[in-house]
């Protein structure tokens, strides 16, 4: 929510902390300030009001009250003349069809209205927080909502036919909104109707039909209270979430409706002095009552873990406009109507904790317990298996659980390749084999050896699977991917003392083996201590080396040198002459023949900017060639 600093200041006669200071105060004690920006001669906070405080904090008065509490600054008493209910002369009778969905509906009828522009102080206030000025009536309704948190609506009374009924829409009924957009309603949508159908979607959006214009002379002002879940469902389904629906869906007290009405009427009278109230209809069949929360100092102290002064809880809660009484050790707190977040003792601990400030509570450790819970068996054996496989030279993948096809499907997938849950690990693993096979030279590996332990989702439900994948990237006589895989399975059997199936699925991209681990783990003895798993600390100072999205080029070079020449001397020539684009070089073969040694090096060239051409690589290779032959050595 956007909060104007100047607006906040208007609630105080005395100085308040600067906006910069408030940013810190709010962050430490109230809500996260995501941004603080200068707008004209004002400063605007972007405050992250979460659902627990949204009942009272989605308005400037709510935030100002917090400044008063946190800095002990008295707020100005701002009151407006009472609006006395009286519907004797009401042109429109108000019927509420479901008093659970509409808990209160106040309709004030006024005449002699002049709809002009808003006074500058109103448009200034709205402007800095990004609210466009429409006309004085719409602006005032907005102003009151942002001031005290009650959404309001103004209808042109001459465009309403018959009585006002608050009730569910008919299925398929349509309404043209103020924006001109037509939407189709259903019986789950609460609407405000006259005899010709819907005038507005309750708490969400007004309709075009009874829109206030410059010609409007008579109005009906609505200040109502709607059931949060209903408003949320409607605004979500119609994709019409806005300032009004947000406040209703987070629940506001029905008591606020009249307070808002007195404020808007006072403001209208100021702007449009001839305006006259002709009727005030207040349908409020079940007025809400106050509630109490009993706590004790001891209980709050135990929750926060600190010692409080006598009277400290009482003081804090009183500052928040709670009534507080104390009897023996019981502190009875009666919150104001708008503090719907204060319902249980824990809520009071929350208030006391944040007001005192968590920086002021000490740190202690939890006591040692008599018995330690056994660690999860699947976790224990999964980690054990990982150890065995890493020892065998396998690397662990964590692949996507979301795939394009599977038994369990996503209701509203955002992408077709993420529309179902994986039924096995195999499918994604074969993609990983291909990816890594392509990069084998870059990775300086001859065989891609990977594994994963993860959850899959089959018609039997969720299962923990293990998959191992192998791909030989260079043909080797008599060796197949399956052989390497089998070796790994045998090693697992030996280490875990179990029998495993050996069904391997092989393809041109290598071999993969996958099993359901649950069955095997269930037969294992209970989990042991975590310390037996040999967990290592994370490397502290490593820096991830980014990799290029462009393809790399591989070049091999074999150099024959006299036996007295050291390997390092050969390598130095390569390093010195391969250029910056050579990102890796490694020795992959050595042999001796006739008193000479052959060193075979693999060089990997790659750019972060583009795909390299043969020519760009050849330049460097020729350079190396020249240097080698210049030494009198031989390039084979």
């Amino acid at each position, binding site marked *: 929510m956007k909060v104007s600093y100047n607006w906040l200041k208007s609630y105080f006669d005395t100085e308040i902390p600067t906006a910069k200071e408030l940013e810190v105060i709010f962050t430490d004690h109230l809500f996260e300030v995501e941004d603080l920006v200068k707008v004209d001669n004002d400063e605007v906070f972007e405050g992250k009001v979460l659902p627990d405080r949204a009942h009272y904090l989605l308005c400037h008065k709510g935030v100002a009250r917090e400044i008063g509490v946190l800095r002990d600054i008295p707020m100005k008493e701002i009151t407006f003349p009472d609006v006395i209910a009286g519907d004797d002369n009401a042109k429109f009778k108000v019927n509420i069809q479901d008093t659970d969905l509409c808990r209160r509906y106040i309709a004030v009828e006024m005449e002699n209205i002049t709809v002009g522009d808003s006074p500058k102080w109103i448009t200034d206030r709205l402007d800095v927080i990004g609210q466009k000025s429409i006309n004085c009536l719409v602006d005032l309704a907005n102003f009151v909502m942002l001031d005290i948190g009650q959404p309001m609506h103004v209808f042109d009374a001459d465009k309403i036919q018959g009585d006002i009924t608050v009730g569910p829409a008919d299925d398929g009924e349509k309404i043209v909104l103020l924006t001109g957009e037509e939407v189709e309603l259903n019986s789950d949508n609460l609407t405000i109707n006259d005899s010709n159908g819907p005038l507005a979607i309750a708490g969400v959006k007004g309709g075009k039909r009874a829109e206030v214009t410059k010609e409007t002379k008579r109005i009906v002002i609505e200040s109502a209270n709607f059931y949060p*879940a209903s408003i949320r469902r409607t605004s979500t389904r119609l994709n019409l979430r806005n300032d009004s629906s947000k406040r209703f869906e987070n629940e506001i007290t029905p008591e606020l409706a009249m307070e808002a009405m007195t404020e808007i009427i006072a403001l209208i009278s100021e702007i449009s002095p001839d305006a006259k109230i002709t009727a005030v209809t207040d349908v409020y069949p079940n007025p809400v009552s106050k509630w109490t929360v009993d706590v004790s100092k001891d209980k709050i102290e135990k929750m926060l873990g600190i010692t409080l002064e006598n009277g400290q809880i009482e003081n804090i809660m009183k500052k928040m406009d709670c009534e507080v009484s104390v009897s023996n050790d019981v502190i009875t707190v009666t919150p104001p109507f708008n503090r719907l977040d204060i319902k249980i003792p*824990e809520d009071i*601990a*929350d208030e006391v904790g944040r007001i005192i400030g968590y920086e002021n509570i000490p740190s*202690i450790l939890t006591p040692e317990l008599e018995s*330690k819970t056994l660690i999860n068996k699947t976790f224990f054996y999964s980690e054990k298996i990982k150890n065995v496989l890493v020892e065998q030279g396998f*690397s*662990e993948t964590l692949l996507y659980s979301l795939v394009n096809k599977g038994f369990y499907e996503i209701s509203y997938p955002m992408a077709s390749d993420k529309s179902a849950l994986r039924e096995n690990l195999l499918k994604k693993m074969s993609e990983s084999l291909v990816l890594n096979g392509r990069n084998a030279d870059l990775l300086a590996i001859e065989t891609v050896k990977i594994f994963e332990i993860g959850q899959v989702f089959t018609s039997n439900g969720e299962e923990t699977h293990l998959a191992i994948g192998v791909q030989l990237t260079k043909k080797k006589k008599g060796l197949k991917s399956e052989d390497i895989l089998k070796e790994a399975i045998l090693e697992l059997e030996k280490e875990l003392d179990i029998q495993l199936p050996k069904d391997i699925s092989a393809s041109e991209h290598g071999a993969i083996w996958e099993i359901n681990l649950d069955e095997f783990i269930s037969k294992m003895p209970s989990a042991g201590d975590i310390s037996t798993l040999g967990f290592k600390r994370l490397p502290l100072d490593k820096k991830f080396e980014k990799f290029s999205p462009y393809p790399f080029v591989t070049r091999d070079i074999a150099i024959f040198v006299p036996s007295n020449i050291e390997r390092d001397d050969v390598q130095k020539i390569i390093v010195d002459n391969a250029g910056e684009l050579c990102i890796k070089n490694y020795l992959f073969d050595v042999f001796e023949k006739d008193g000479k040694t052959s060193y075979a090096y693999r060089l990997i060239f790659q750019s972060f900017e583009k795909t390299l051409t043969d020519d760009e690589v050849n330049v460097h290779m020729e350079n190396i060639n020249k240097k080698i032959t210049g030494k009198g050595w031989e390039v084979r």
Partner: protein
Amino acid sequence: MEKNTQEGHLHIITQAVRDISAIFDKMGFSVQAGPELETEFYNFDALGTPEDHPARDMQDTFWIKTKPGEEKKVLRTHTSSVQVRFLESMKDNPKPFKIIVPGKVFRNEATDVTHEAQFFQVESLYMNKNVSMTELKGTLEKFFLEFIGPDAKIRFRPSFFSFVEPGVEVDVWWKDRWLEIFGAGLVHPDVFKSVGIDPKEWKGFAFGGGIDRLIMLRYGIDDIRHLYTGDLRLINQF
């Protein structure tokens, strides 16, 4: 270059999970786990976020297609669902415990270099007759001192998570700025009630948060998506 002695690597997330688990193990916390495919009850309702509650906006959810009448299912949006499952398993014979739950979670949001549809979280739950915010603070401070180093500082900021009260955001001072790392608080009495444990007798603290970001920051990994494509160019660096 070694030819026949190819070196295997644990995924960096697994290495992080192991480090975190070992640190908490020393403080008496045991690793637990739970399903990734969850019911609406364990992921939301029992955690104080019933249908049509604004708190559901705090998490973009992958809902699973179900048949009419079948219980609604989701890919868990947090490891907090395991809190409920573990508490439920204790309801007939409650006794003090400390657990941590590392695991994969899912969010239905557009992906970019810092957002991914799947990532890892670690969750913790401690239950005893008396549990306080000071113990929560002490436990987290100790963890970050071990995990990040002796310069680590933490701060609590008031926040809201439907399953704790009081609820706080845990920021960690790292690389010259405050980072929002964990959500935390005292277990809300309604969570105990939802599984049949008496909140008058039992109290608890809980915290949880993402692991991926801690790893990305620590090692300068520029794109979260690299973590989940099985790319050995990343995996084999660690």
